[in-house]
């Protein structure tokens, strides 16, 4: 079944390239993807922790390399996110004037890459699947993007290509850190080895820093974040939704799945560095966000900034922090996708998305204004949305980090992070005021509300955010056993 989740988008993409009707096929595949991930999510047995639905095909027995898929609490949540955002992204796609088949095929390739990475229980495929999304992104931004699209496409592709090669070196170093007879790419076996102490503490620092920087570039960790805002601003709406909502979470997922559990001593060694960088994400990028004058760049920067909170939960290395970070990944993916979707709707009237070119749209587009408000509140972290619940959990986790970490440094970081909430409120509310408040210009008063035609995808995203916000326990209890099992006692 997990293989279906990976191969349905792939096959649909190939079908579209070979001449199947583009939008219908893509939408069908996205719906199937959503239903399958939802089904996996619901049928995952919480009582039994660990990986379920495992299936394996040998690829290279000499290296102990298998195509191995399976899900645990963390990956099932990420798969669900992939399914929801894919459906929403393909649904909101406007009419494509040129080369429609290639457009939808690229989107589906991104989905397949993300789903493959989240479902793989083998390091090699976890890495390889993520890279499947690299070239489609390059094409999507380069062909159908807006603004400085060529610069943005080059920047994201070279940055991510560089990041993934650093990551590859880290994974190889990790693979080779295990004694020769026991080497494997299988994450379950590696986890057992790590728990039993087969990876000596001294051998953990080097692979961890490679992994941190490699994954960090993919997540837009400060100061490697400059690719992200430009790329998201130029990318076509569905590509930005998929990339910011789902694909960027792969790096965080990798830290939670690979770097922290397998190399805990390495993580402790570099904890202070990570703290400094994540405060950079929250404060420095936060101020940069306030300075933005265009909605697409503002959303791009804000998505970089919010990575800081997730890093904070990861850095704490305890179950509370990591669970909060996992839920925050889910929540952030949904809220940023909803915001990008609505920014895309606004693009129809003002392609530049300059904040001062709008104003008073609450009158002409009340439904959009309402939905945008909800998504903005979610993004700031107001109670009722999953973002609030998960950010709180992250703060609790980070306030009392795992043994071996310096709590006072974490206290400092938490204080900075709390100020970050204020920063988010400043830029989100300013943007909201500039776009929706006041009196509309004559021209703007006549604009039709685009939300009516495209409401369902956004409603889907917001509804899941609210459900997870009112019942975060359901989601947290899903991921907690995963982290309990892998974190060092």
């Amino acid at each position, binding site marked *: 079944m997990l293989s279906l989740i990976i191969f349905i988008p792939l096959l649909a993409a190939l079908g579209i390239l070979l001449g199947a009707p583009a939008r219908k096929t893509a939408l069908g595949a996205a719906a199937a993807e959503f239903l399958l991930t939802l089904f996996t999510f619901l049928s995952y047995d919480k009582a039994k922790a660990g990986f379920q639905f495992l299936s394996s095909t040998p690829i290279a027995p000499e*290296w102990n390399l298998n195509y191995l898929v399976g899900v645990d609490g963390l990956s099932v949540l990420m798969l669900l996110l992939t399914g929801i955002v894919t459906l929403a992204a393909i649904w909101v796609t406007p009419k494509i004037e040129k080369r429609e088949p290639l457009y939808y095929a690229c989107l589906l390739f991104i989905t397949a890459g993300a789903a493959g990475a989240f479902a793989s229980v083998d390091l090699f495929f976890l890495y390889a699947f993520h890279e499947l999304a690299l070239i489609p992104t390059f094409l999507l931004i*380069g062909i159908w993007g807006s603004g400085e699209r060529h610069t943005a496409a080059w920047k994201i592709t070279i940055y991510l290509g560089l990041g993934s090669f650093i990551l590859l*070196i880290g994974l190889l170093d990790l693979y080779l850190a295990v004694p020769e007879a026991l080497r494997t790419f299988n994450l379950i076996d590696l986890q057992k080895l790590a728990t039993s102490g087969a990876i000596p503490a001294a051998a953990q620092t080097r692979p961890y820093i490679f992994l941190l920087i490699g994954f960090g570039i993919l997540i837009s960790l400060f100061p490697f974040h400059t690719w992200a805002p430009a790329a998201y601003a130029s990318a076509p709406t569905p590509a930005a939704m998929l990339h910011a909502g789902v694909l960027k979470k792969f790096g965080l997922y990798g830290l939670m799945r690979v770097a922290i559990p397998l190399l805990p001593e390495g993580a402790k060694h570099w904890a202070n560095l990570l703290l400094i960088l994540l405060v950079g994400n929250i404060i420095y990028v936060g101020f940069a966000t306030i300075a933005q004058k265009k909605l697409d760049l503002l959303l791009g920067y804000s998505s970089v900034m919010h990575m800081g909170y997730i890093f904070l939960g990861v850095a704490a290395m305890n179950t509370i922090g990591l669970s909060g970070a996992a839920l925050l990944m889910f929540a952030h993916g949904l809220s940023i996708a909803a915001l990008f979707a609505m920014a895309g709707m606004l693009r129809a009237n003002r392609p530049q998305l300059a904040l001062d070119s709008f104003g008073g749209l609450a009158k002409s587009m009340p439904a959009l204004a309402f939905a945008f408000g909800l998504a903005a509140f979610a993004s700031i972290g107001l109670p009722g949305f999953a973002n609030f619940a998960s950010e709180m959990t992250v703060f609790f986790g980070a306030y009392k980090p795992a043994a071996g970490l310096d709590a006072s440094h974490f206290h400092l970081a938490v204080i900075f992070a709390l100020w970050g909430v204020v920063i988010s409120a400043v830029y989100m509310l300013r943007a909201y005021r500039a776009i929706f408040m006041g009196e509309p210009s004559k021209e703007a008063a006549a604009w039709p509300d685009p939300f009516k035609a495209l409401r369902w995808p956004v409603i889907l995203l917001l509804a899941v955010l609210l459900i997870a916000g009112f019942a975060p326990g359901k989601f947290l209890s899903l991921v907690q056993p995963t982290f309990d099992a892998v974190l060092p006692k």
Partner: protein
Amino acid sequence: MIPSLCLEITVLLLGILMLLVESFSRSDDKRGLAKMAIGILSALVGFSFFVDPASGNAFYAVDATAHFFKVLALLTTIVVLIMALEYSSVLAKYLPGVTPGAGLGEFYSLPVFTCAGLMFMASAVDFLLIFVSLELVTISFYILVAYMRRHTASLEAGVKYLILGALSTGFLVYGITWIFGLTGETNLAAIQHALATKAVATTPLLFGLMLLLTGLGFKVAAVPFQLWVPDVYQGAPTPITAFLSVGSKAAGFVVLLRVLQPFLGVPGVGVKVLAVLALMAALTMLYGNLAALPQDNFKRLLAYSSIGHAGYLLVAVASVSDTKATFGSAGVAVAFYLAGYLLMTLLSFLVLIVVARHSRGDDILHFNGLAKRSPFLAFALLTAMLSLAGVPFTAGFIGKFLVFAAAVQAGKFWLVAIGILTVAAGFYYYLRIVAAMYWQEPGDTTPIKIAPLTRTAIGALTFAVFVFGIFPQPILRQLKDPAFLPSTPVHAAHQSEHGD
């Protein structure tokens, strides 16, 4: 079971037969010759799997490595002949001939001789055979590079290749002489035996080895012996450029691995040679990849990229260790990388020939909008570029994966760091082609027609790049425990001692 030597003899006979037909045939159109050669060489690929493993001798090894590289040589030659067929109309313009199509026979038969040389080289474990087969390859290339007699660039390339090739041969022979003088042997296994048993002065040995590395460095286009590459690659007829960048590189590396083997275990020598190789690897990666960045001509870009790939291969060679590991073993990395490199490079050149003929030029801008003119060709070239850049699920990625695994295992992190930077540079210049094909609008919208044989070859190569990127197992199984010297070195050494 057939004796292994039969393969080379058949190839040589085929070449001679083609020359005879070329001389005595009344027909002007010699394309049938190439098609015949393609058929026979393909059959030989099949026959090579039924070689008697005991048919080797002290000169000529019959092992998995030799078999692997022979198959590579045969496949390369087949694709080169397909390219030559596609290229014949361009070639005819630059040839003085009474009728169009005349004088092309040698263009089809010389690659067959090169192929024989490459195959001999794959088996050569004696300096004499290594030298003779290397010369068979090089001399046929001298003619092929300068084949377009009315094209000044081709002539210039021919002269450059001739002079520098001859010089490098000189270095090689001189190096062999020193090593022979020190050990009294030309057989590699015997040299290994002699080095292990006799006390040999290390300084002259190192001097001889450095001369040898200089000679081989020219063949594989490693910095600082790479200066001939861009002009020769750009000037030579495109099929020959492809042949040079794949065939001579593969042969150079198998010889390098075999030749290095005896010296690695010698105290005070092995470490130094590896250090020199590591330095060459670093410079080659940097030079090839950085110099490729500003190129606007696709053929020249591929020339620089080929230098860059020689750098990655040298990284693997420099990460050789005498401890034998099944994974991360540098030999596997080199062999797999070469196999992947062969597929993707030949694919790029095939597409280049087709596109260049229709767009009348081989600059990057001639690829603008190719995705609209021919989605098939654009996808094939996209595959080749991704593989060259090292994107997962392509053969090129597995190659880089193995190379970097070898380097990490050997603890050569400074090489790894340079490798990461150059890979990022590679992303830029390979994707420039992708950007031209997919982002830009075509200047000329006429669809491109492709000959059936070429179409089949392009399809097969594209498919193979993906298959070996997802299922590397068939190649890995062939390469399991690669030995670069015959498995019975003592026996061979004993024989030659007996001969003394």
